[in-house]
């Protein structure tokens, strides 16, 4: 099991206005893909932040992440304030695809794609990465800067960046929301082809239920909390 969490919660703000996100139970196997769905503002991005080891959970009865088969107690790392270990885990095991790509403007496409590989001291390129670059049609764009890319090219480059270091989990936050539907479908098709081939687990935050069904994703839906302001994500 790649990800195993129970009663994982997060709170933003204080008092009556506090917004809470609760994940009562979530298990994600290697190569499995799930979709966090719900209306805009329901806390999908916050749930991704929790699962992406970006924000400290308010509570976590169990929060394990398996790297190379060895379970890592993420809750314990947060409690111990081991931010370096959390950052290292994030760098090695998680890839992020953001709504607007999130490429660094001062690096070329090649530089952006290779940033996590350099951080992990991996060779700049390998055959699998070259194949991915070809599949995403980025070969001719490697020397360009993000500002020189179209929206579709930009998003394809950010997918390559997220997968280049072969993370075991990719967290994708509405990755095609900025694209027109036809282009969005093309990019998502490429994305799913790649993660399936690489055996990468995916947590996709989206409000596009059609896409969830099309790609046969297991849906984890946001439901309003019975008490207070916020959402609970449950299958």
């Amino acid at each position, binding site marked *: 099991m790649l990800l195993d969490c129970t009663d994982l919660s997060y709170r933003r703000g204080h008092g009556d206005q506090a917004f809470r996100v609760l994940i009562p139970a979530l298990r994600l196997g290697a190569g499995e893909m799930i979709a966090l769905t719900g209306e805009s503002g329901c806390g999908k991005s916050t749930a991704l932040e929790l699962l992406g080891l970006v*924000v400290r959970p308010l509570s976590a009865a169990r929060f394990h992440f398996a790297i190379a088969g060895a379970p890592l107690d993420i809750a314990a790392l947060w409690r111990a304030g081991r931010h370096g270990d959390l950052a290292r885990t994030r*760098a*090695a095991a998680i890839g992020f695809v*953001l709504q607007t790509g*999130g490429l660094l403007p*001062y690096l070329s496409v090649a530089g952006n794609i290779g940033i996590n590989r350099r951080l*992990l001291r991996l060779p700049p390129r390998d055959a699998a990465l070259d194949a991915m670059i070809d599949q995403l049609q980025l070969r001719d764009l490697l020397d360009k800067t993000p500002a020189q890319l179209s929206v579709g090219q930009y998003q394809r480059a950010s997918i390559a960046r997220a997968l280049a270091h072969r993370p075991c989990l990719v967290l994708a936050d509405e990755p095609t929301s900025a694209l027109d539907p036809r282009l969005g479908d093309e990019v998502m098709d490429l994305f799913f082809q790649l993660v399936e081939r690489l055996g990468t687990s995916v947590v996709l935050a989206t409000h596009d239920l059609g896409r969830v069904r099309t790609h046969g994703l297991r849906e984890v839906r946001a439901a309003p909390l019975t008490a207070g302001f916020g959402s609970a994500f449950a299958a």
Partner: protein
Amino acid sequence: MPESSNQDAPQSRLEGLRLALQDLWHDRRTTLVLVLTVASIIAPLMLLFGLKTGVIATLRQDLINDPRNLEVVVFGAHRLDQRWFAAIAQRPDLGFLIPRTRTINATIDLVNRERRPFDAIDMIPTAAGDPLLPPGLPTPVHAGQVLLTETLAKRVGWTPGAPLTGYFRRSRNGTPEHAQFTLEPIGVIPESQVAREAVFTHLDLLIASEDYRDGLRAGLSDADLHVPSARTRTEFAGARVYARDLDAVDTLAAALRAEGIEVRTQAERIETVRAFDRTLSFILRVIALIGLTGCALALGGALWVNVDRKRRDLALLRLFGFGNGTVVLMPVVQSAVIAALALVLAFVTYLFGAAAFNRTLGQNLTGQGYVCRLEPEHLAAAAAATLLVALLAAVAAGYRASRIDPAECLRGG
């Protein structure tokens, strides 16, 4: 599964350093503006310090070039024994020391080849290392050898190789007597060194003069001048004392005064230069403090704004797994690079400015003829101060960067 998880802090820092430099290059217009801003503050400061250093150095050099400023003049007649001379000779602030006899006995009458007399010429004892002698001039090795000052040599019409006849005169029981001997002038002391008529002699000649006038010698012949007598003398009435350098004049004079010896120095001239140096240094320190504070604020503000402008990029780096320290390091590195580039630019500007000052104003000066000059240690200090200011300026930006939450780039969409 990840292919590797060997990411470590040094690698993160190294990559952060690379990214910081790439960001600077990508944003090169902003970088250039910051470099120019910092350089425009540092360059005038370097020129001001260069002017101060150059002017003070010129004044100091003028003082040093005139060895009379190093002299601690011993007044009156004393009884200075060999132990006193040995003790003074051990002092680290001493530059030159030679005994001298009573002033009343330190004159000589000369006669040139045309038998023309020149009476009561001052005799000054000298030896190797005498600061009044120009480098390369030989010193008398026995009492028969003398050095003439240029003004005296002109007056007696001395030509190289020509001997002079010397006379010491005395009165015994009302009867005038004199000793006559031949002197071999071995060189001329330029007027720039000693601008008066005098004979620089071996100490033995002064002792012989004193002994003869005091009636301790029956007579004095050419042969007597080759017999050393200084070692047998145990006490002297005075001494020619010179400090090692300008800063040593005060301490040496104070040491002699502490022994009850009245001395005089060119302390006033030296103190004037020192006071000028102190005043200029204070003024420049205030200007530098204001300038560097302004520089720190300008650079710090720019870096702060830069961090704010790029906080999403910095948040991305945190999201990708770069450590907090790496993200903090980036504005610090950028600040240091901007400061280093500004320093180079300021130095080049300073070189042009200093050359212009020296060309136009240097001719008006005596000595080495420069008015603007920084020594390597001054440049090193300028570099250190600039980098320190840059690092201080980066502290605020670094703190700002450290507060960036990696979640910002997710929430921002």
